[in-house]
């Protein structure tokens, strides 16, 4: 178990360093430096500017500086946004994204698990068919379609919420709803599959045979095992929520991490784009690790499997 977690932590570190190296190489390969603008700047001034941000050193030194800076959470200043540190921008954007993302995850679980469980408990019934069709539709509806539609209906027609922006305390609702509904479809499907498979297993028949009530069978015996596929999916779901958040933040004009990242990439703001990418990697790695730990706790077989 400990070895399993240790290997996962190590793998996470490899991922983050890899992300840093690749983003570094990509951004340095890009044509045009951060100081190339409309005006021609004299050679010696440009060189001075570059020296100030350490861009005059050889590439390996720059790379090492970057990895070192990120490891110690000392984000370098960005030449594109003087006076406003990269760390500051991330610190401002992250709470917005995190609030929307967490709310979306909760909505996805709150809608998806009951819908999937209901479908699994009454196979072939009307509830089953409705929930399955709804899940298929949800999986196929991309956030870039659902987002504008939700903004149109609840924001512009019904005027329940702001259609865009981050002004009122309830501005997280519509973006979270967009992301949450899409992921609830995946979760409903996984819950249904997991629960149906589990309910067909022998220990469930044993539980029923010894006279356990249907509620106890489902919640005490089946649910823990049936949740594993859902739990498995949460790692990729975190990555997906992130992808989706880039779109929803653009639809709803939220000042979140995704907007900053796209903006930084377009403006060739090396430092910010790289820091955001690395931050995303850190988030995904942390989330995957969390999922691994919960999984290892729920399913003791996993720890041993990995050691073999």
């Amino acid at each position, binding site marked *: 178990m400990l070895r399993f977690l240790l290997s996962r932590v190590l*793998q996470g570190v490899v991922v983050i360093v890899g992300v840093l190296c690749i983003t570094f190489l990509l951004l340095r390969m890009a044509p045009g430096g951060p100081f190339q603008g409309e005006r021609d700047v004299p050679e010696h001034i440009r060189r001075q500017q570059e020296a100030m941000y350490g861009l005059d050193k050889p590439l390996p030194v720059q790379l090492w500086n970057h990895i070192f800076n990120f490891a110690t959470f000392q984000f370098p200043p960005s030449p594109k946004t003087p006076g406003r540190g990269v760390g500051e921008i991330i610190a401002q954007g992250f709470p917005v994204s995190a609030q929307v993302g967490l709310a979306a995850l909760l909505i996805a679980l709150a809608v998806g698990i009951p819908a999937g469980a209901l479908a699994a408990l009454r196979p072939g019934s009307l509830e089953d068919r409705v929930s399955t069709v709804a899940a298929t*539709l949800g999986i196929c509806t991309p956030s870039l379609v659902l987002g504008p539609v939700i903004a149109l209906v609840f924001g*512009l027609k019904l005027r329940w919420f702001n259609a865009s922006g981050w002004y009122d305390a309830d501005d997280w609702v519509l973006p979270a709803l967009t992301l949450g509904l899409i992921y609830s479809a995946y979760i409903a499907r996984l819950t249904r599959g997991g629960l149906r498979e589990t309910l067909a297993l022998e220990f469930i028949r044993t539980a029923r045979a010894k006279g356990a009530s249907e509620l106890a069978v489902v919640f005490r015996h089946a649910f823990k095992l049936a949740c594993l596929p859902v739990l498995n999916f949460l790692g990729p779901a975190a990555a997906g929520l992130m992808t989706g958040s*880039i779109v929803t933040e653009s639809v709803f004009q939220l000042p979140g991490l995704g907007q900053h990242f796209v903006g930084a990439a377009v403006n060739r703001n090396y430092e910010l784009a790289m820091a955001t990418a690395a931050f995303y990697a850190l988030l*995904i790695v942390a989330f995957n690790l969390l999922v691994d730990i919960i999984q290892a706790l729920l399913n003791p077989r996993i720890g041993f499997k990995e050691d073999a």
Partner: protein
Amino acid sequence: MSAASEHLTPTQLAWRRLCRSRVSVAALLLLGFMMVLCVAGPWFSPYGPNDQDLELRAVPPNAAHWLGTDPLGRDLATRILHGGRISLLVGVLATAVAALIGVGYGLVAGLSGRRTDALMMRAVDVLYAFPFITFVILLVVIFGRQFVLIFVAIGAVEWLTMARVVRGQVLTLKKLEYVQAARAAGAGFGRILFRHMLPNVMGPVIIYASLTVPGVMLLEATLSFLGLGIQPPDASWGVLISEGAASMAVYPWMLVGPSAFFTLTLLALNLLGDGLRDALDPKSML
């Protein structure tokens, strides 16, 4: 299985099984309809995708313009069909890139020794944890927003599952008697690879390719939506949805048209992928 079906090839069997599912047939018909519409439709349209009629700016759907026009007076239906060509093309090409990389990687990993295999698959595990959307965005931003780069960049990040599937299949095949018999009979690496392995991994590859296409199209639409993919005035469904979302408060039909086309196509592709999986599943073939 009845005696009659024993004379059918596996492909014919799979086709029969696919046709037995009403959902798959409907999805296939819808997809075929969409493709014919997008490929052939623009030839029959009286308008060009960028033709402007400044008298008829932003008119709602009517007899002359079935899906309305945009604020620049361009016929929306024609633009949707042209956009569909690009979206579908990106979907197919990026999937081809992903399949090429994935199959190659999976074959090599599966056929190499244990240590190389473990190393290669560990690399795939690590790559799974990468934030890919950020990489695609960086790739597109750095190398320019050209059509070729968009699908190469998307294909370059979507091959992982394919590699896993192919490698798993190769590992299973490697142990089968007929492959060992071929090796014992003196068949070389190349012959085993092309004659015995490739034809047998095609089933799973087709399944995963069909499930990859909608994901790839979604990624293209996302990029275009963010302004990082296909550039206006060229249209893809992502570009049109983005334009529609920008003006949906005043001209809702600009959002509805492209969204409907895109979502229906994704739905058809997903349902077809599920149907293909049921029809081609190696387990049900036995």
